[in-house]
């Protein structure tokens, strides 16, 4: 199975990244792209203007083929393009691929490329670039290329504007692998035959996108200017973009407020600030544009530690938590309360499961039922928690968890770590509980099953089944559902697996997180796809 | 009294008040003095007598507002210094009067060239142009007897010796040829030979310029050397004020008489010490070298503090080591007592060479060789009671605490203190009393040899005498041998049997006290003797007998 990626922070130090890999989506057949109307109602686009975008933290580099952290994406998606884009329902839309077909056996994907596209340095873009990217560049540099392209047999270019991908096994989710961060097309004429990591052009990205790299003042800003030779006539509409590095959350909010910047994304803005900013007449808050990620945050529990090996204890913990309070006061209303392992916007979601209400008395009952006894301080158990070191929200969340569990007699001690220490302890199972959030990539086969199946209990590897939860029935259901073509049968399987997981609570799902994109109202057409801010901005324009 | 001429300065009923809460309300009380042109007035007194306050009050340098003139007038050429405007005061300073301070090492601005410092006064108060000022500076430097005025003008003070700095100070004070020169103990911090030169210089310039001089000192020898008239101060009051000849030879006030009686002076010595038996201590070619200024990645300069020093001390003998600062006399003492490790030579104590002994091997000898230090304020640990201080040695060598404390009380009585003070802390005692405690501590281990390193030089003269007498007494009673280190030949003359004169790390003359004084063979010894101030003055006979008796007392046979 895929073990693509996991928890990410976007705000804080270390950052997030990747999208995804392909997955089987039975029934999802090739469809020609139909442009979904952009979110902001478009008047006549105005040409010109300067766009200021918050960038945080500073990306290590801008070569999207070499680095896919979210800040890198925010900038580099204006420079690089892929074959496809996706609408809010994850339907593919054309990008550098004008049209595409998938063979009936699901083994051949044929893409017809746009014509007359040139790289920023004037070289023509051809199918060779696509083949080079898929067969040479990404397999060497992209951390998830080996899993994304596992079924890929070869890639051929019948002519300059056609590319064919041949799979050795049907894998319907493959159509989702052409999102720009998973498959940024790199210029073959620059990279072919060089050490990709050491290429002298690495400080000057060359793509096909609507904006060209102009200048990067480290610690300060990245400056892009409009590409006059962009293949979409009349675009982009704005003249230049400044990505401003503002490492302090309060300063970022202030910058939006004072109109020094126009757009913030991901968790640039602490949730505390969102309601206030939302009230300002010149700002709007949009939560679309993160559909692929569909992040779900939970409390991760090490099942190797007593008494947390007992489902009743995990249930007790769940009953002790007021998830509405978490949503309203920690995430400031940004998010939905999950019912189970699958995000409600993700395919195959079912709400036919047990619902855990906030019920501290029930929590105490459960623990008494287990035969736990209170110690001198009135505690049933002591637990150490590693707060996810990705920004203040998660620290607040940990503090809340400590208080809430403390009220039902579970004494929680927090233990601070930096991101490296956190990653190591979690990967090596040297933790008791922690919080985490993981992207789902649209489909349970891509971003859900990896967390719960026995096969994926791998010490030392992050974003696997680090809890040590193992239920063979769950494994079976996930495996079969992934290759099941019949929609109803598949739905039944996923429903069953959700019910089992909700009963056994391998982790405690807290919130389906929503990232706020906060935009100055003078900016139009900013969110036009599931990529959200990590899209080309070719259609974006600035009103007076 | 002073001449009938119009006085340069006249003090009328000068009182200087101290901040409330002190031990007395006035530092100076109702002092009346006059200084005429060409007159040198010496103000004499012990520490705390208020003599310096008088000078500071005249110069307007009192640390106001805590200490200030409370009453009286100071008329400089008829003009009251205390009521004139600030501007006028500034003009008067420098032009009307100049001042020299006690401590030449700190009286010059360390960051200014010598020339600039002299020039500053000229720039402020004279019409001379740059060239004229420079010429005047050179002239002044030559006048005060400094070599190479041209080089010296550009030097910074730190390159000058103490004597040279004091000369520079005099040059500054003389720059504008003031009518009055105030010298506040200008020679106290100097070696005796330098002191003589400075005294000569002051006398010379005073005669040349016809100035009035107020010279503040604690030393009657100096008074005898230069004074025209003398004012004796005690506790802020002027107890005797008369012409020098009268005060020196026919003192009236009891206090003056006591002071004069206490002046150390060469007296016809007791019989010569007869050396018997084997030497208690024999120093042979002792050498000690210090590394100076060394540091990281840098070797320091070598300073030879003692070079080829040899002397012997017999039981019951007092050997005086006399020399000026830097002569190596203290180094020698510290090598013997084991505070420094000698770099060469032998120090044989009762047959054992102490040089090169390990700490542990040296320890038994600690009992036998004890030391009395110079500074009574630094030599007693302020945190301990007197009994603990005295008994620390015996306790370290295994005497039970109780017994050691009993012995401490005995020793206190021996050194002339009441046994009951054993429970007090050092800060409750005066300098002389502390020095007694210090002696008691040294005696507690029943030493055979006592090293006394300038034991009286930090004390006022009257106290000095008492401590010297005590040391002498104890030596007789206990039959101690003593190495007495001092810079003052007069002091040495009173207690020593044998005298070694040291100069720059070497002994230049070694002989009986009588020989050294009456028959000095080395030129340096002669220079030292010559430099003793007030030699031509004989202490009045009626005062002299107060001290003579004890000195001539027959020697007890040592045990």
């Amino acid at each position: 199975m895929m073990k693509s990626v996991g928890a990410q922070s976007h705000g804080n130090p270390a950052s997030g990244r990747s999208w995804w890999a392909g997955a089987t989506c039975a029934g999802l057949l090739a469809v020609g792209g139909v442009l979904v109307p952009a979110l902001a109602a478009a008047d006549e686009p105005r040409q010109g203007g300067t766009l200021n975008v918050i960038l945080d933290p500073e990306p290590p580099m801008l070569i999207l083929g070499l680095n896919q952290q979210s800040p890198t994406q925010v900038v580099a998606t204006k420079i690089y393009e892929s074959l496809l884009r996706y609408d809010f329902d994850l339907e593919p839309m054309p990008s550098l691929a004008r049209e595409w077909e998938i063979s009936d056996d699901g083994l051949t994907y044929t893409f017809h490329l746009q014509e007359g596209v040139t790289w920023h340095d004037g070289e023509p873009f051809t199918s060779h670039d696509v083949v080079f990217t898929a067969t040479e560049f990404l397999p060497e540099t992209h951390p998830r290329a080996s899993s994304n392209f596992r079924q890929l047999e070869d890639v051929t270019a019948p002519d300059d504007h056609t590319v064919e991908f041949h799979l050795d096994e049907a894998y319907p989710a493959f159509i989702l692998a052409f999102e720009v961060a998973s498959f940024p097309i790199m210029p073959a004429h620059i990279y072919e035959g060089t050490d990709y990591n050491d290429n002298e052009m690495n400080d000057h990205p060359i793509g096909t996108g609507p904006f060209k790299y102009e200048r990067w003042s480290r610690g300060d800003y990245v400056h892009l200017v409009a590409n006059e030779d962009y293949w979409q006539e009349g675009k982009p509409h704005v003249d230049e973009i400044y990505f401003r590095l503002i490492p302090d959350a309060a300063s970022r909010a202030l910058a939006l407020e004072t109109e020094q910047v126009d757009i913030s994304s991901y968790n640039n803005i602490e949730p505390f600030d969102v309601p206030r900013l939302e009230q300002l007449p010149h700002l709007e808050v949009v939560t679309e544009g993160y559909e692929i990620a569909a992040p779900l945050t939970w409390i991760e529990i090490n099942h190797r530690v007593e008494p947390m090996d007992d489902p009743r204890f995990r249930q007790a913990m769940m009953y002790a938590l007021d998830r509405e309070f978490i949503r309203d006061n920690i995430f400031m209303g940004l998010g939905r309360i999950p019912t189970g392992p699958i995000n409600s916007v993700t395919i195959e979601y079912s709400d036919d499961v047990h619902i855990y209400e906030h019920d501290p008395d029930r929590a105490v009952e459960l623990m008494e039922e287990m035969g736990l006894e209170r110690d001198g301080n009135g505690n049933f158990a002591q637990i150490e928690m590693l707060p996810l070191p990705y920004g203040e929200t998660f620290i607040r969340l940990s503090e809340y968890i400590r208080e809430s569990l403390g009220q039902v007699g579970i004494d929680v001690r927090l233990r601070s770590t930096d991101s490296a220490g956190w990653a190591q302890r979690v990967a090596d199972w040297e933790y008791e509980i922690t919080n985490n959030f993981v992207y789902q990539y649209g489909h349970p086969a891509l971003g859900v099953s990896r967390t719960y199946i026995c096969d994926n209990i791998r010490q030392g590897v992050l974003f696997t089944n680090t809890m040590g939860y193992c239920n063979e029935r769950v494994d079976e259901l996930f495996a079969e559902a992934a290759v099941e073509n019949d929609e109803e049968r598949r739905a039944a399987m996923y429903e069953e697996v959700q019910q089992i997981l909700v009963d056994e609570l391998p982790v405690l799902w807290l919130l389906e997180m929503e990232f706020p994109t906060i935009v100055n109202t003078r900016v139009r057409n900013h969110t036009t796809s599931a990529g959200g801010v990590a899209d080309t901005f070719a259609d974006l324009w600035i009103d007076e | 009294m002073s001449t009938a001429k119009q006085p340069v300065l006249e003090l009328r009923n000068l009182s200087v008040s101290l901040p409330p809460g002190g031990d007395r309300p006035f530092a100076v009380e109702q002092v009346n003095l006059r200084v005429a042109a060409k007159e040198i007035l010496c103000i004499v007194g012990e520490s705390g007598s208020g003599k310096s306050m008088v000078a500071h009050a005249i110069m307007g340098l009192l640390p106001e507002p805590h200490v200030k003139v409370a009453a009286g007038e100071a008329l400089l050429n008829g003009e009251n210094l205390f009521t004139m405007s600030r501007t006028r005061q500034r003009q008067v300073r420098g032009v009307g009067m100049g001042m020299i301070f006690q401590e030449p090492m700190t009286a010059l601005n360390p960051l200014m060239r010598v020339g600039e410092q002299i020039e500053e006064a000229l720039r402020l108060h004279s019409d001379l142009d740059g060239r004229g000022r420079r010429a005047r500076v050179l002239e002044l430097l030559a006048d005060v007897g400094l070599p190479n005025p041209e080089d010296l003008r550009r030097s910074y003070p730190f390159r000058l010796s103490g004597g040279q700095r004091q000369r520079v100070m005099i040059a500054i004070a003389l720059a504008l040829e003031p009518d009055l020169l105030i010298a506040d103990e200008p020679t106290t911090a100097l070696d005796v030979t330098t002191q003589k030169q400075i005294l000569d210089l002051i006398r010379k310039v005073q005669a040349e310029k016809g100035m009035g001089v107020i010279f503040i000192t604690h030393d009657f020898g100096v008074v005898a050397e230069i004074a025209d008239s003398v004012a004796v101060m005690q506790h802020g009051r002027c107890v005797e004020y008369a012409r020098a000849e009268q005060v020196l030879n026919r003192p009236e006030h009891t206090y003056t008489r006591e002071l004069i009686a206490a002046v150390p002076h060469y007296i016809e010595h007791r019989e010569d010490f007869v050396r018997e038996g084997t030497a208690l201590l024999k120093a042979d070619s002792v050498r000690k070298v210090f590394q100076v200024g060394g540091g990281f990645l840098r070797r320091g300069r070598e300073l030879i503090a003692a070079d080829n020093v040899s002397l012997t001390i017999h039981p019951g003998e007092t050997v005086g080591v006399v020399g000026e600062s830097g002569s190596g006399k203290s180094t020698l003492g510290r090598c013997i007592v084991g505070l420094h490790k000698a770099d060469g030579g032998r120090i044989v104590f009762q047959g054992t060479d102490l040089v090169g002994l390990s700490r542990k091997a040296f320890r038994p000898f600690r009992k036998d060789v004890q030391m009395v230090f110079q500074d009574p304020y630094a030599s007693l640990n302020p945190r301990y009671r007197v009994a603990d201080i005295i008994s620390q040695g015996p306790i370290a060598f295994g005497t039970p605490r109780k017994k050691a404390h009993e012995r401490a009380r005995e020793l206190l009585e021996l050194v002339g203190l009441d046994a009951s003070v054993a429970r007090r802390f050092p800060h409750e005692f005066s300098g002389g009393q502390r020095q007694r405690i210090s002696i008691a501590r040294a005696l507690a281990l029943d030493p055979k040899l006592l090293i006394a390193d300038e034991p009286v030089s930090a004390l006022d003269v009257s106290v000095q005498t008492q401590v010297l007498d005590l040391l002498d007494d104890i030596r007789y009673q206990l039959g101690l041998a003593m190495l007495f280190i001092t810079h003052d030949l007069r002091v040495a003359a009173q207690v020593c049997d044998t005298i070694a004169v040291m100069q720059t790390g070497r002994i230049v003359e070694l002989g009986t006290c009588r020989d050294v004084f009456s028959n000095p063979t080395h030129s340096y010894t002669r220079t030292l003797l010559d430099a003793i101030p007030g030699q031509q003055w004989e202490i009045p006979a009626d005062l002299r007998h107060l001290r003579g008796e004890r000195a001539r007392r027959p020697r007890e046979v040592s045990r």
Partner: protein
Amino acid sequence: MNRDFWNAFASNRGALVGLAILVVVVLMAIFADVLYPRSPWSMVTAPFQPPLSDDVLLGSDTLGRDIAAGVVHGSRVSLLIGLISSLVALFIGVTLGALAGYFGGWVDDAIMRFTELFQTIPNFVLAVVLVAIFTPSIYSLVAAIAIVSWPPLARLARGEFLSLRSREFVLAAVTTGQSTPRIILREILPNSLSPIIVAASLTVATAILLESALSFLGLGDPNMMSWGYQIGAARTVLRQAWWMSFFPGIAILITVLAINLVGEGLNDALNPKLARKGRGR
């Protein structure tokens, strides 16, 4: 002696004010559980309540925790860490300084080079790294603060020992056969303590500032409510809730101020000679 000490101390009005404030802070720390029996982390009211709201005197924070409770309980951490880390720094500094000053020579050279090394590394950077590496906890905070705080104390102790070593009462101790440890501990140490105590009291103030700065950066002990943590947590909501950072900041300010004032008073009382230069002529 004690009376003199107290009189000298009391003659400095600032020191008295400082002492009074410090007593209040200490009482606050001692009786924190009486004043606010519930944990300072407990969410007692609605988030973002401004000061003087019904049940929260100084307002509430983003989770509805009582700022006043945090300030009161925070005094414990500040004082505890300030005190313990200063004691540790004092121990390291005085030990090294004493050895360097007493023995001189290569021992002195080596120790002083070592001290210089620690003074060259920017101390806050070092503290941040130490706490981050050894994971934030009360122990790592104390250790880190102590490690960056000892060099000035070592230099001071060395200076004192160096000058006292050649003082005559110490020489007298040598000549009367006292052992070296005894000379160091009984003769020199007690006499070098006055300036060291003063410096140490100022070290406590600096340590509290350091602790708050580290907590502010999120490097505090996550289980202990501290002032620096409160300000750090309030930084992002500075605009909505000024009170969240204002009151803890004032708490740090007056506590540190009080300790400095007391330090000056101690200085006046313990080192009368030095005191004079600080104040009137």
